[in-house]
């Protein structure tokens, strides 16, 4: 018994040592993403992308002579797990964290990274993420307010809908996007007949949709995630609600079409242009490498946005010649010339928002592919 215990203790101490040895020789990059749970598809896309980029950089000699070590923490898409991940990654000594996919998780982890001086880059689009004044946070996507204004303009001025329903779940991202869209629609003189909320993952949306049906809408705008959006669309068609369905950016995932089944046809999705349509040579070569390594396309543009965030931070460190996170953030907040990114030019405003933003409205075809309905 005693010997067993001694063996166990020595194994334990060995493994503890193994963790601390070489701490100074590598650049630790954290990935905080939903590897399991409803958004696992997106989370795994982020992790795969980060590992691929790290591999490519390491093959070229690393960053300023240091190899990148990727440490992943699964936040399961929940705020609670995200807060634990943040502490865990900080304790492991990461310099930057890529993720998370959802705004809720990014927000739950933000303060911990800020206090530790760890750079965080997320595709979370909730406006609140950049309203706290944390210099550590760099948004690699475009904020909700930009999408909301585009959506409102399209629904009210281009399509001239008379009775619009705005629907969301309770997450930071979805609620923020829906509120911003509702406000923007009203500002343009549009008529929002109902602003409803669903509980994410509850699957049974027919009671809410039945209520919506009685309002006789001609358009439904859903700010929320694809795992609910696909079901909503299917149940909307099943209930015979004739309104046009518009999904916000987080509905842009192949699973939306699979979930909605035959009802997916003629639903619309509002988002930035999709990965396959990205024109730059960097995008083409990275996506080709991704397909070669993992045998599938990146699940959506969100993973690539996160990769761009990581590339920008590493670029800043290389330009500064050291790994100081504050200096890297200062560099990124004051770039004169944007860096060429996979998802377009990357430059950050002083508040950590990514500059720019272009949106398209995509119509889902019978075979599940998209056709561009309207390009900004």
């Amino acid at each position, binding site marked *: 018994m005693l010997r067993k215990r001694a063996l166990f203790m020595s194994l334990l101490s060995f493994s503890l040592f193994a963790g601390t040895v070489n701490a100074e020789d590598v650049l630790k990059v954290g990935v905080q993403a939903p590897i399991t749970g409803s958004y696992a598809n997106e989370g795994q896309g982020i992790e795969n992308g980060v590992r691929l980029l790290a591999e490519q950089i390491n093959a070229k000699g690393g960053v300023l002579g240091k190899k990148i070590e990727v440490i992943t923490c699964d936040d399961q898409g929940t705020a609670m797990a995200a807060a634990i991940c943040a502490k865990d990654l900080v304790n492991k000594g990461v310099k930057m964290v890529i993720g998370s996919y959802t705004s809720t998780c990014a927000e739950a982890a933000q303060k911990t990274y800020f206090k530790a001086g760890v750079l965080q880059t997320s595709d979370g689009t909730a406006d609140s993420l950049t309203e706290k004044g944390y210099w550590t946070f760099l948004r690699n996507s475009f904020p909700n307010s930009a999408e909301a204004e585009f959506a409102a303009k399209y629904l009210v001025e281009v399509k001239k809908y008379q009775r619009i329903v705005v629907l969301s779940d309770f997450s930071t991202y979805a609620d923020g996007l829906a509120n911003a869209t509702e406000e923007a629609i009203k500002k343009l003189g549009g008529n929002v007949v109902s602003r409803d909320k669903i509980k994410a993952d*509850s699957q049974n949306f*027919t009671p809410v949709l039945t209520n919506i049906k009685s309002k006789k809408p001609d358009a439904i705008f859903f700010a929320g995630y694809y795992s609910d959006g696909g*079901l909503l669309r299917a149940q909307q068609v*099943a209930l015979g609600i004739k309104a046009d369905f518009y999904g916000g950016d987080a509905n842009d995932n192949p*699973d939306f079409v699979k979930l909605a089944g*035959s009802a997916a046809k003629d639903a619309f999705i509002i988002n930035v242009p999709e990965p396959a349509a990205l024109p730059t040579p960097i995008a083409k070569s990275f996506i080709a490498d991704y397909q070669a390594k993992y045998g599938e396309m990146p699940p959506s543009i969100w993973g690539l946005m996160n990769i761009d965030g990581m590339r920008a931070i590493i670029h800043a460190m290389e330009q500064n010649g050291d790994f100081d996170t504050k200096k890297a953030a200062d560099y990124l907040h004051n770039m004169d010339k944007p860096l060429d990114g996979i998802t377009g030019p990357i430059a950050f405003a002083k508040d950590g928002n990514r500059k720019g933003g272009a949106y398209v409205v995509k119509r889902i075809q019978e075979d599940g592919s998209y056709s561009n309905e309207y390009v900004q």
Partner: protein
Amino acid sequence: MDIFLQQLANGLTIGSMFALVALGYTMVYGVMKLINFAHGDMVAASAFVGLTIYTHVMGQATSLFAVIAIFLLSAASMACVGIILERVAYRPLRTAPRLSAVVSALGASMIIQNGIMLIWGPRMRIFPELVPQVYWDFGGVVISLIQVIILILSLVLMVALYLFVEKTRMGAAIRASSIDQDAARLMGINVNNVIALIFIIGSSLGAVGGLFIGLYYRGITFNMGWQYGLYAFIAAIMGGIGNIPGAMLGGMLLGLFNAFISGYVSSTWADAFTFILLIVILIVRPTGILGERVAEKV
């Protein structure tokens, strides 16, 4: 009025799924006085088994024969899992204190849930459209073919179960075992067989419920068993746990209650109201709505 009728149709559909799952809880409780917490996860597992049978055994065929085969094969597989579960997790603890069996049930639940995750992965899987998307519009109330199938098949299964328990000799053995296992044994009833039978029936009905969830909602995740298991458990308690017609009634009531609260009050509050209703029922009728005939629990 059409809104009311639409919510009624929605509530009956979801309610019959709850009822099917609730039967598994209530039958096991009736005979063994044990809450089989793994039941919800068995329901989830059956949806995944059904999906695998569809893709690998049936070669993605969508004919009527294929659909029936998927139901039968899934129910048979889950019946086997149910028997194994009883042998491994519950039979060794039959004479142990009740708390040990409950902990064993919780453990089994985690093992099954994580087993699903390891076999089929953590991602949401999409169930095929096996039932054609046919809808009927009755003056604003839309009812789909799948809803009709779910409702009718659930009712048929429930009536068949009721007749089986009330009218056959095996049913009499089940009822006898639920009243007093020792006395039943003295009367020549093989209680082990009865318990195995209970698990076979409960798991198969749960399997049908799991396939309905897959067919109706399309998206299935490894952890969905928790949600449906909880609702079905509440339904079983509402109706009077251990009572078969009680589980059916409880499931239907819960489905309707949920639909009307979501529709007329707020979907945000549906869960809160569900638990308030449960508390009220337990205060007013601690044995559940149909739970008064304590002596004849099954």
